[in-house]
């Protein structure tokens, strides 16, 4: 696994050199695109992170966790994971921090931690992606696709907790 990234790098550099691409010039041009791209992300990043912080501080996230835990346990999802499942669609770094906490608290090979890892690894930051992908567009109408994605993620979460019991 560790070889994938070096191989990708060497292949691309080697092929570009073979095709006589001005490697330094083009690489820096790519980085300059990265600068513009990062700047274009900052407005929606700032808004989303402020919202997440308010959500956390106000106690709304705790309340929602308590409210949804019974529903999740009904589906076979351990209540310890409710918080992770709620944070993941909004923030990758926030949910990663919580995942680390779960692993440290319950042990890396415990059922809870394995469930958490599978849920984390097989889901994405849905709201963040929707904000970034469609930032520059006027008409959005993303409610239905977002609902579909969240539903599919919930299904895979339930399956994840089931699979971790038997695998």
């Amino acid at each position, binding site marked *: 696994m560790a070889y994938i990234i070096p191989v990708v790098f060497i292949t691309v550099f080697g092929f570009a050199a073979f095709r006589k691409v001005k490697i330094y010039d083009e690489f820096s041009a790519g980085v300059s695109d990265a600068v513009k791209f990062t700047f274009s992300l900052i407005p929606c990043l700032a808004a989303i992170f402020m919202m997440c912080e308010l959500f956390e501080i106000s106690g709304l996230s705790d309340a929602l966790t308590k409210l949804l835990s019974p529903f999740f346990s009904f589906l076979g999802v351990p209540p310890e994971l409710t918080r992770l499942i709620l944070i993941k669609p909004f923030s990758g770094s926030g949910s990663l921090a919580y995942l680390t906490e779960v692993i440290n608290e319950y042990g890396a090979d415990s059922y809870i931690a394995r469930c958490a890892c599978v849920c984390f690894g*097989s889901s994405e930051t849905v709201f963040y*992606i929707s904000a970034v992908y469609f930032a520059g567009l006027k008409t959005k109408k993303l409610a239905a*696709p977002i609902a579909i994605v969240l539903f599919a993620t919930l299904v895979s979460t339930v399956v994840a907790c089931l699979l971790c019991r038997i695998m």
Partner: protein
Amino acid sequence: MNIIFTVVVALSGLIITFTAPDKLLPALLDGAENSAKTALTLFCIYAVWMGLSRLAEKSGLSKGAAKALKPLSKKLFRTENEAACENLAMNLSCNVIGIGGAATPYAVKAVSELEKDGNRYAQKLLFVINATSIQIIPTTVITLRASAGSIAAADIFLPSLICTAISTIAAVTLYILGHKLWRI
């Protein structure tokens, strides 16, 4: 997003006003600080991958990837747009080999290319595929477990693969079905 943002911010703001009014401003500033830190981290990832992807583009490598995936993009995304195909192909390849950081810029470019043709269907489909995660090797999680002293850090590989497949297939099927029935 507008509705979610308004509801969450208004509701949280109201609760904080009653419970701890002095915490509102620090919370907002913390959020802004986090966004700045994240932007810096993201810039580092994008600088590496967008530099490399520019080389792939200029040397014709990404054209090759686009050609290989052309039947798929034609059928699934219903697009003939060359530039869009190229970005779609690179987005999917990056996702599959587990460099999600490199995938985002391609997706954004593909979405803006598809916008020129007014191809909303392909834009949303691309979002659905990316938002359900199509990562084959969950590298972050395996590294995290290994560093926490797991005896078999990679044993979550198979369950993760199954769950990723289930969520992506379910979401894509639902979306295509919904699009056919109600033009969502």
